[in-house]
């Protein structure tokens, strides 16, 4: 089996598109299927790894794919699991989050290889996502207190996401495909 293929060097458009599709699917699968049980948090303590997957995607493949995978992958989850109404908000909040992570982690040609910047990027993206959801839910509930309720849960999710994503990226960056 030969690794070097023409199209993976030139990174053709088709490949880019298909890879984005796979990343969407990965974010979705991680959201639905991959859970870590935490001793804390209210909702049974299950935290999904969707956010972690979003971070990894953005760090490995940059802002554009990160935004697409986060927005559509998690939006799809809302659509399928009865949170349909939230899908448009997710599209915006997670899209922005993915974009911010990718943009910072890929700034000045770093391409996600600086662990410090990756960490910085993920932490900075958390308020972006929180504000995004906060504004959307605020409009929905016609109230600025109700949406506060979802903030702690979101923070836990993001913290787990960061704790998981940073080491995984450090390993993945050494794999020849993702350099």
């Amino acid at each position: 089996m030969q690794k070097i293929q023409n199209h993976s060097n030139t990174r053709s458009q088709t490949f880019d598109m298909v890879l984005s599709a796979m990343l969407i699917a990965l974010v979705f699968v991680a959201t639905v299927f991959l859970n870590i049980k935490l001793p804390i948090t209210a909702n049974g303590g299950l935290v999904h790894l969707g956010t972690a997957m979003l971070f990894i995607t953005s760090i490995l493949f940059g802002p554009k794919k990160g935004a697409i995978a986060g927005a559509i992958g998690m939006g799809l989850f809302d659509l399928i699991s009865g949170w349909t109404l939230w899908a448009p908000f997710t599209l915006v909040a997670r899209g922005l989050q993915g974009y911010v992570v990718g943009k910072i982690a890929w700034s000045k040609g770093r391409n996600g290889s600086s662990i410090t910047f990756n960490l910085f990027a993920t932490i900075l993206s958390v308020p972006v996502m929180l504000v995004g959801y906060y504004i959307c839910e605020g409009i929905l509930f016609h109230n600025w207190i109700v949406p506060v309720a979802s903030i702690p849960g979101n923070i836990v999710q993001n913290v787990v996401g960061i704790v998981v994503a940073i080491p995984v990226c450090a390993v993945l960056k050494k794999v020849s495909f993702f350099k």
Partner: protein
Amino acid sequence: MDIKLQQVSYAYSMGTPFEKYALFDVDLTIPHGTYQAIIGHTGSGKSTILQHFNGLLKPSKGQVHIGDRLIVAGKKAKELKPIRQKVGIVFQFPEHQLFEETVLKDIMFGPMNFGVSAEVAQKRARDLIKLVGLSEETLDKSPFDLSGGQMRRVAIAGVLAMEPEVIVLDEPTAGLDPRGQREIMDMFYSLHKERQLTTILVTHSMEDAARYADNIAIMHEGKCVLSGTPREIFADSKTLEQYRLEPPHIVRFQAKIERLMNQPLSRICLTEEELADEVARALREG
């Protein structure tokens, strides 16, 4: 270490509307040191059964004995880790489980999870890499820079490094070329003999079952429908047909020759050499 399944049933998505039974009342005893083959079509329950051998799945009904451990349906099993160290599973396409930076680290991953020291794990890796037919330089490479066949060997070494007493093989040669297939199967067989392992081969290859197994169990639609030595199983091709299975090529060929000679040979032959001997003898004796 004996493995014993008693009245084991397994349902996926238990307790939901999608509940679906994949195993029904399976009884199977695999005494220590046996080479057991489990044969069946895709969807016959083979891969569900194999996950019971080290507690990856717990039976929905019935019980599983693994050595002196007992896993009973409905009861919470604590600490399955010791079982998993003793029962190593080589899954289909095991190369998909590689993840470490170097081959060495990946082989050491399993044993170190079970508390083996780094020095010992490293020594095992150095021994095993040669056993699976790769050079020692491979240890420092990234597993993702190897060819598919080499990755397979590294993954196998990673399971062997845990030094299990029971080794479960799920289609270990799928997708390899004929030489690769033969080498891998022969390697497992000699390990089985040398280290007195219990080997469980889950396969749809009748040929491999005939060649290596002491015992064969046939799975069909979630049930264990037939069990016996290869000669017993292959003597009755009618019953096999019922389960849409064909006896191995060599056995079918023997049947043709027997029709030609108009007399049966003295035994069912499991390898080509055996058949050639038998035919030669039958002809000499006229």
